[in-house]
């Protein structure tokens, strides 16, 4: 279960990296370039705003360069603070313990006061004042650690030391508007939460309460601090899966969703709320002895609605992954009731069919002009590709023998029936006339029939290996032809990547069984190098032609 969760998290990451990073980079470039175009009178500010509006982008404020004084004072403060903590750790005993505590506390308070003086009383030393306040906060941590050391407070109660460090520095962050201390406090609260859970074996409800009620409202425009706190909350929610803290995961999820309504410009609240609800449903499943969670459909449905309403395409992938995990948990639960074991073959075939159905949704969305058709297509393509790639290994097919899980088997064919109905509907509407649609459908039908054959006859390992590999080649060719047809370089490149991956995998697969490993690597390396050069040349030529 946990592996499945990690697998899907990796899939989300890959899709986001592959698909959105590209756009984000272009958007950032556009945001940076626009002011210079306006300065050179190539466009006027109204046109600049219109361009930004077209891509739903905000104008970036021209940021002053980080000056040297700021960096030096900050680094200096951190160095001195760490030095003091290491000094405390060395447990230097030439000075009596209580004198050491008194000295450190005095230095801490003096530094804090100096921070105040430079921030508010002396003009022109604001940066130094802020760094000194950070240094005082680090010294404060050293003081608390020193007292803990003197009285031998055990390592299992480090959470208590961290809490006594974090809480008292929060007023410095809030009332003296010190961003560095806010970041430090946020970071300390994350550490405290984990130490508390690990050492006390209980759900820590105080952490989300502190973050929702204190740290997030005071973070205001401080993005780093806000992100640290949000990451802390999601990690706490993920941790619930391993510790069966069902209500804590739900509480965090609901809080993040509520925050999305308070600060809509911060989309990360919606992503993380969605992720947290997924962790909640996994926790629900483990806590209630593999019972499915029907209540999950309520929040995920609502988040899906918000995703469409607010046009947040990245979140659609998280929602789709959430729904797939929920569906799999439900089937796992039914499998347990009817006494079926985990069957890797039917599990993978089922995921590939889910991928095909999502691709169909993408095609229908495109035809009807709905949002996010490309997301459905790219995500589902990856799902079907990964599943078929796994099935193309003989070893994987061999492990599937003798463990037929009828629940997954019939669920796969139920999904296949829905796919057929959708395709028939497409055919009746006469949408197969376009060449690109025909190409896409060809690959989908190949995957549907091929993977279906593998599920029906798991014992025919040699035939199944051939079928899965044939589907991979069809995928690669479809992508290459489709990329040329629709003039999308990334679709074409994906085809080349699939093809190259197929060749390399099969070469290693076959070559690994040979006795002569040195020859295998030398020949393999040369083949891959020449193939890579050839494919890259061809790819560039075709992409240049497409752009022309």
């Amino acid at each position, binding site marked *: 279960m946990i592996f499945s969760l990690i697998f899907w998290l990796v899939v989300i990451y890959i899709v986001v990296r592959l698909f959105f990073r590209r756009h984000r980079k272009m958007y950032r470039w556009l945001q940076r370039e626009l002011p210079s175009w306006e300065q050179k009178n190539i466009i006027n500010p109204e046109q600049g705003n219109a361009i930004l509006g077209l891509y739903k982008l905000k104008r970036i404020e021209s940021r002053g360069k980080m000056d040297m004084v700021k960096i030096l004072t900050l680094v200096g403060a951190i160095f001195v603070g760490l030095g003091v*903590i290491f000094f*405390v*750790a*060395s*447990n*230097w*005993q030439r000075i009596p313990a*209580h004198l050491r*505590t008194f000295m450190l*506390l005095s230095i*801490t*308070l003096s530094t*804090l*006061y100096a921070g*105040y003086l430079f*921030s*508010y009383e002396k003009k022109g030393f604001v940066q130094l004042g802020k760094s000194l306040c950070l240094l005082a906060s680090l010294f*404060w941590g050293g*003081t*608390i*650690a020193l*007292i*803990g*050391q*003197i*009285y*031998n*407070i*055990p*390592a*299992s*109660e*480090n959470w208590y*030391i961290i809490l*006594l460090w974090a809480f*008292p520095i929060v*007023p*410095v962050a809030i*009332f*003296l508007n010190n961003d560095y201390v806010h970041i430090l406090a946020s970071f300390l609260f994350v550490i405290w939460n984990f130490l508390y859970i690990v050492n*006390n*074996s*209980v759900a820590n409800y105080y952490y989300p309460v502190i973050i929702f009620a204190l740290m997030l409202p005071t973070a205001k425009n401080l993005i780093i601090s806000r992100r640290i706190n949000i990451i802390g909350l999601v990690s706490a929610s993920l941790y619930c899966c391993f510790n069966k803290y069902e209500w804590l995961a739900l509480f965090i999820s609901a809080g993040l969703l509520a925050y999305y309504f308070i600060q809509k410009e911060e989309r990360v609240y919606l992503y993380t709320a969605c992720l947290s609800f997924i962790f909640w449903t996994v926790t629900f499943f483990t806590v209630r002895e593999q019972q499915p969670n029907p209540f999950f459909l309520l929040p995920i449905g609502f988040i899906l609605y918000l995703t469409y309403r607010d046009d947040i395409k990245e979140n659609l992938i998280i929602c789709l992954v959430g729904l797939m995990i929920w569906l799999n948990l439900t089937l796992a639960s039914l499998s347990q009731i009817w006494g079926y074991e985990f069957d890797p073959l039917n599990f993978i075939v089922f995921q590939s069919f889910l991928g095909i159905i999502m691709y169909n949704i993408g095609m229908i969305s495109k035809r009807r002009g709905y949002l996010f058709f490309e997301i459905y297509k790219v995500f589902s393509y990856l799902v079907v590709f990964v599943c078929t790639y796994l099935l193309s290994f003989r070893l994987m097919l061999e492990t599937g023998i003798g463990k037929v899980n009828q629940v997954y088997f019939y669920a796969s064919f139920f999904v296949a029936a829905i796919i057929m109905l959708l395709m028939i509907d497409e055919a009746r509407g006469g949408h197969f006339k376009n060449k690109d649609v025909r190409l896409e459908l060809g690959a989908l039908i190949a995957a549907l029939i091929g993977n279906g054959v593998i599920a029906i006859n798991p014992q025919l390992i040699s035939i199944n290996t051939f079928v899965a590999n044939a589907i991979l080649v069809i995928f690669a060719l479809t992508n290459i032809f489709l990329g040329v047809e629709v003039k999308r370089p990334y679709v074409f490149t994906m085809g080349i990547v699939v093809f190259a991956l197929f060749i390399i995998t099969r070469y290693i697969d076959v070559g690994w069984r040979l006795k002569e490993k040195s020859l295998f690597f030398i020949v393999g390396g040369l083949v891959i190098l020449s193939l890579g050069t050839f494919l890259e040349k061809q790819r560039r030529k075709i992409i240049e032609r497409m752009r022309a």
Partner: protein
Amino acid sequence: MNKKIIIVIIGFLWVVIAVGMVLSKQQTLRTGKTVVLETVPVDPRDFLRGDYVVLRYKLSSLDMNQIKSIKSYYRPGESIYVELKPKGKFWEATAIYEKKGDTINGLFIKGKVKYYYDKKLEANYGIESYFVPEGEGRDIERKMRGNKSSVSVEVVVDSSGRALIKRVYIDE
């Protein structure tokens, strides 16, 4: 509010916390009763506070067949009160209570259940770490390796069951 007043309040708060921490520990040391416990130590390194010796006591692992207990099951994280009675040089656990009021006149130490399995209860008492100057942890560990040295710890336990390490004895 005036920033100067805020800084004074924060400074005052820090002093109160630091002094409060020291005083509460001093109160335990001043009013508590000293007992000697038997241990088996090892030597890790605390990321925050330097070298320390991990101490494991005979009463860290309790066999429920051999000591008195009202309950038959304990949850991890649950607080317990363990009654201590002298047996020769050392003090040993004789009974486990759920509440402080259950113990009758005897000395008891407050602990937290780590886990309970098959009538065996593992507990922490807040006296499992003993901090030593940097580098000395290794020496102590070397002395104690293979049970060549006998190790005992002098612990102060106050009236509410809170315990603090006073001294560690090696071969004494």
